[in-house]
């Protein structure tokens, strides 16, 4: 089987901030409804859409919605080397950074290591209102309190696509069979998903566009989630000074 490198290019000029991707992600991955005691900083949002402004006021103010999730770092993946019990690894076949909640100690060292704050700890016991358990996705294990989780590019969908390929007696999966929930749900087709290692794929070509960028590329971790925008100030967010936009907002 050829080595794949799954990644995304998110067109920020298309994103309307509807949050559909967040809902689809939660439904697909059995993310429990937010606990009444959860806060913005203790919730579970493996995919979150953050409004980001240029920091200016009045007519000069500009905003963009930034969908944020695990960036699937390829090189020196910060969270992989730190985990004391090998609960995190980069899948050699797909390049997906996987998290094994069943082995997670809950030490949160990986969360400290992640510069994108893309990892979430289950601070609360997961609870579903009566009857809602029928909506659970049987292909995805629920996570217990005290473990870390994150976006794994809808691993259950990958497994399903691999099963379909196996039924066809081939190891090559059909790209149409493996589309993460956030990608499938986006009403504006803002998220392009595919194999970055396939130079002919739309996602690989979009990633090479001069309008494409990656967050904190300067760290050298080779994230596989790319963004694109025609607006220079949005592209400047990639390696901008930490906290720059928040600072301007605060004056």
């Amino acid at each position: 089987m050829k080595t794949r490198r799954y990644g995304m290019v998110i067109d920020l000029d298309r994103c309307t901030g509807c949050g559909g991707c967040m809902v689809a992600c939660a439904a697909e991955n059995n993310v429990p409804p937010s606990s009444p005691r959860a806060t913005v900083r203790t919730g579970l949002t493996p995919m979150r859409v953050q409004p980001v402004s240029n920091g200016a006021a009045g007519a000069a103010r500009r905003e963009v919605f930034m969908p944020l999730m695990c960036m699937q770092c390829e090189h020196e993946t910060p969270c992989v080397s730190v985990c004391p019990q090998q609960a995190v690894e980069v899948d050699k076949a797909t390049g997906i950074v996987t998290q094994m909640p069943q082995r997670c100690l809950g030490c949160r060292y990986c969360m400290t290591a992640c510069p994108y704050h893309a990892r979430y700890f289950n601070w609360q016991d997961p609870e579903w209102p009566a009857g809602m358990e029928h909506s659970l996705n049987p292909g995805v294990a629920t996570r217990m309190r005290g473990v870390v989780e994150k976006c794994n590019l809808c691993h259950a969908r990958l497994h399903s696509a691999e099963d379909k390929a196996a039924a066809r007696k081939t190891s090559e999966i059909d790209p149409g069979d493996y589309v993460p929930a956030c990608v499938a749900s986006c009403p504006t087709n803002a998220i392009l998903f595919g194999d970055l290692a396939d130079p002919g794929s739309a996602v690989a070509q979009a990633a090479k566009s001069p309008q494409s960028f990656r967050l904190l590329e300067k760290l050298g971790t080779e994230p596989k989630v790319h963004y694109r925008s025609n607006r220079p100030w949005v592209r400047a967010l990639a390696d901008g000074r930490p906290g720059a936009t928040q600072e301007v907002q605060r004056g």
Partner: protein
Amino acid sequence: MASVAVPDRQWIARGVERTSASRFATLLAPWFLLLAFGLYSAYLCLRYGLNQTNMDNRFPFGLWIFLDLAIIALGAGAFFTGFLVYILKMKELKPVLNTAVVVGFICYSGAVGILGIDVGQPLRSWFTFWHPNTHSMLTEVCFCITCYLVVLLLEYIPVLLRNRQLRRVPSFLIFEHRFHMLVPVLAGVGTLLSFFHQGSLGGLYGVLRGRPFAFREGFAIWPSTFFLFILSAIAAGPSFLLLISSLVEKITARRLVDTAVLRRLGFISGILTAVYVVAKSVDTLEWLNVTSPALGFAPWEHYAYKPFGTWLMLAEIVLFGLVPAGMLLHPKTASRRGWLIAGAGLVCCGILLNRFTMTIQTLALPTLAFDEFLSYVPSWQEVASFGAVIAYGVIVYSVSYRYLPLFPREKKEVNHVSGR
């Protein structure tokens, strides 16, 4: 044969004075209350989860990790004194060896206890030994701290067996005598284990490429923080021992350790603190001028958010480094107990500040352009749980002091400080 029916006085070594059992119990009562309250807080965290704390997804480490790192560094006096006495043959430090073992045991067992609450799935702790990630600094920390806690427990046994009643059991006496021959070996093993875990605790932060405030280049697989943490721990260990010994002297109103021994501890701590200050300064300059810019972060960005200004870095290096090193080394100040104690106190405060900035400042600073600078205030459950560790330490040390010969000099002469 010793039994529980033996009166309390009979458990106390001959020739030493101790307060009555009832007064001792009264003095310890508030600490037992604090311990009980802390255990209740720990129960809440274990029963209902870490939502009882004020940690969150952006502040995944908090008060517990900061103080764990600090007490593990302060407890370094145990292995380092063992190393000095048994490996470097500095026999003059033998009078504080027992106290060093007890203090080390308290610090390490307390830290491990808190870690047991701090992880989300404490029952999975054994996974680290079953599925170890050999690339993780935390794996090394887990292995070495666990092994070293066993070493400390073994080192504590001979001290325990010197209790007046336990010595009356012939088999205990023989065991203690034979076991004592193993102590130099344990000191060597303890030194090796401690060097690695003290260093790996520094390495925990130094390897964080995604946290430019903490990330450091280094030697081979070890970032510079690996070596700085070892150096700072062995500098602070003797100072903490000096502080504890002086505190016990103050509380008991007795001279328990010769001034010469304290001066020796202060001198060792002073020398190592001076070396640490030089190493830390060189490392800071290298980080500000080379490592951080290479990652694309301007040095001043790390100090742009108040209260974490450059004053904190300067305080760590000058006020809690250079100044106490001078106090502990200068003949005039080092010859006076008050200055010695003040110098040792400043060194210990320096360790606290260093572990605080490495844990809290690292997490508070933004990394992305649209990140916020974050603050974190520990919950009462976090504070109380750590209060239990302090209470546990006071109780274990007090009971050890009462029933075990921690200070050999005490038996020889019982003098009141006021009488000198």
